[in-house]
């Protein structure tokens, strides 16, 4: 299992995460239905505005689904940042993971480790998180 993500998207996610610190940052990468390709990044607002929680605003969530339905896209990646803990799914990340087809990308903005080493991806299905490799393309 692996996910291919372009360097530009990795940089954009890390940049957004640092900009929104100390809140968690979040967003999605979309791709054509069935392709599994992460082609279009869309930053989302963390409606929780919290260093320990993120949630897409319910209105934004509906708008996102309407948009991707119209464009024949699907959510390929759901990403969010952890502000001061490792880039591993928390108990709540696993409990609320509602997209069995998505890759859940976690980054950490903690500064005691270079952020580039903390860009990780997981599948979260039926309450089990399984890490997969991230292939960064140019």
């Amino acid at each position, binding site marked *: 299992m692996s996910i291919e993500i372009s360097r530009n998207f990795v940089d954009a996610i890390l940049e957004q995460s640092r900009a929104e610190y100390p809140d968690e940052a979040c967003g*999605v990468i979309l791709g054509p239905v069935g392709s599994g390709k992460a082609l279009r990044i869309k930053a989302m607002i963390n409606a*929780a505005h919290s260093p320990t*929680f993120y949630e897409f605003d319910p209105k934004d*969530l*509906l708008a996102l*689904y309407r948009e991707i339905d119209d464009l024949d896209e699907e959510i390929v990646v*759901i990403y*969010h940042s952890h502000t001061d803990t490792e880039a591993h799914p928390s108990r*709540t990340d696993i*409990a609320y993971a509602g997209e069995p087809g998505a890759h859940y990308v976690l980054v950490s903005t903690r500064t005691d480790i270079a952020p580039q080493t903390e860009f990780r991806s997981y599948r979260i299905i039926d309450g089990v998180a399984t890490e997969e490799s991230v292939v960064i393309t140019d």
Partner: protein
Amino acid sequence: MSIEVRIPTILRPFTKDQKVVSTTGSTLSEAIANLGVQYPGIAERLLENGALRRFINVYVNDEDVRFSGALESALKPGDSITILPAVAGG
């Protein structure tokens, strides 16, 4: 005329992979109860202690039901319900 219900991926195992199903009911509560009869198990995934689960978003005609009466939201034939799991975590 019935009420259209859009089912998210995670609940499609209950609806034999159907993305859109139809049901009846004059309130959201009735519609979910009827949906539960048609597709056993699905109502439990939407409700907890008699209320909508916190991390399930339900919209009637694109209106978040939390602001329109929650389970008591009125429905009329031709209305559309959309169910989306919250994208949230810690």
